[in-house]
């Protein structure tokens, strides 16, 4: 693997973002709106609910972490979509670039763009709504790590799906975080869910993050073992998602889809 070529994939995205307000704006706009909306909602809930329970770290903190996860996933898929939208596959895959370098470049791009979003969310949540990450202590690090890893795996999986199904299928990818959110208990404990939903929750790494977050707020200990399980699950999903991407890519090489991608299908 060549880091020089990996960074070139990142550089291309930086050129695109630097020269385009419409690419820069979404890096922070939706999550800023989310912070404001949920910030005021938590303030309101604090004013009407019984004294002693603070909704800010429970709800606003959870929404912030969930938005971070969404940004990570979209960071990968949007970087991939740039090649879809500009019909660049033939140009890019006819170079010495390895598929592992290409995917690594997408991940690195996602890290950089997500950090912008995270910084904006932190500023709004702490400056305007008194959310302090000190409440979560050092546990915030494994929380972010698990969400980051799972976001990467879903981003790679989504990119593979679009590579297989064609440009129009990108609309399957945007709602993925919304489909997952009821199962992982962003805003409520998963014990609220029926049994069949809880079975799905248990194989989704973010579930353990949000259960852990609520445990801290309630003054209960966080299960490090369960967070470890979540991290291992997330790493396994990254491995599986990458294998899926490589399989789809190889199948596209055989079918001729890479060379004729805009046709969406070679049949």
């Amino acid at each position, binding site marked *: 693997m060549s880091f020089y070529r990996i960074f070139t994939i990142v*550089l291309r995205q930086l050129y695109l973002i630097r020269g385009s307000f419409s690419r820069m704006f979404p890096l922070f706009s939706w999550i800023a709106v989310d912070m404001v909306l949920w910030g005021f909602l938590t303030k309101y809930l604090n004013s009407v609910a019984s004294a002693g329970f603070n909704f800010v770290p429970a709800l606003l903190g959870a929404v912030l972490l969930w938005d971070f996860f969404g940004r990570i996933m979209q960071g990968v898929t949007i970087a991939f979509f740039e090649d879809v939208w500009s019909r660049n596959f033939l140009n890019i895959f006819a170079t010495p670039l390895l598929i592992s370098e290409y995917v690594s470049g997408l991940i690195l791009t996602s890290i950089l763009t997500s950090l912008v979003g995270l910084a904006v969310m932190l500023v709004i949540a702490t400056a305007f709504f008194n959310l302090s990450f000190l409440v979560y202590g050092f546990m915030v690090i494994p929380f972010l790590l698990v969400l980051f890893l799972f976001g990467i795996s879903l981003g790679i999986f989504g990119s593979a799906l679009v590579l297989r199904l064609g440009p129009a299928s990108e609309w399957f990818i945007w709602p993925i975080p919304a489909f997952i959110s009821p199962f992982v208990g962003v805003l409520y404990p998963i014990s609220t869910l029926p049994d069949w939903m809880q079975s799905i929750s248990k194989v989704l790494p973010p579930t353990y993050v949000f259960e852990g977050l609520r445990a801290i707020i309630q003054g209960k200990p966080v299960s490090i073992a369960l967070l470890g399980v979540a991290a291992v699950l997330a790493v396994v999903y990254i491995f599986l998602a990458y294998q899926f991407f490589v399989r789809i890519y190889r199948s596209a090489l055989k*079918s001729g889809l890479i060379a004729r991608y805009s046709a969406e299908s070679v049949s």
Partner: protein
Amino acid sequence: MVVIYNRGKEIFIPDFRWLFMSILSVKGLRKVYGDTTAVDGISFKVHRNEIVGLLGPNGAGKTTTINIILGVLEPNAGNITIDGLDIFSHRSKAIARTNFSAVYTPLPGNLTVIQNLRIFGRLYQVDNLSKRIEDLLVYFDLIKFRNKKCGVLSSGEQTRVSLAKSMLNNPQLLLLDEPTASLDPATARDVRVRIREFVAKGSGGVLWTSHNMYEVEEVCSRVLFLSHGKILLEGNPKTLPGEHGKKTLEELFIAVASERLTLEGS
């Protein structure tokens, strides 16, 4: 260096064998899509300092062949080596010795000329890239467009950018799929001159597809006629028509396209 022994003494001499090696070797290449055989067991070579024309009607298998050589399409059978490297077992190293320009694959229109050249130059890990880009901007008369987005350029200007990109890494094998299709006659002639200079000055070879038989006759030292995925004829474009009872290369092309069986029998 090669070592020879003369009366027990070692003598080192320069190894010039690479000069005689073909830059591209294709053996038994076959690609099937469902019931359609796009490329049917073709074999050919491109030597150093040679421009080979790959001719044939639409759907003959020219672009399929080029896509396989570029590593973006997997064949059902066959071997390809570029500069002695097998493209299936040494893909990255073999592809680093090639580059291409195709009329149907413009560079991303949302990046400027200089950004596109920088990105692709980096992907090919070109040494002294900034100087190479400046030289190519001058060579293809692109200086005034350097900071323009490729999407706003005319089709002729985009073709010149694509050709500049295709020469970034001084490829040993240059694949050109209808490179002059969207150019006016004067610009097309300039492009032909530049590609002939590229071949004359370096040690690379070119595989060129075109439907302009005048251009092919002027540029190519050898042509391969492809029809229904098979190579039907091969030879010098200046003498080949006469050998098959035709006056011009265009007449021969039409005959190959429409009377395949007659020519196969001749």
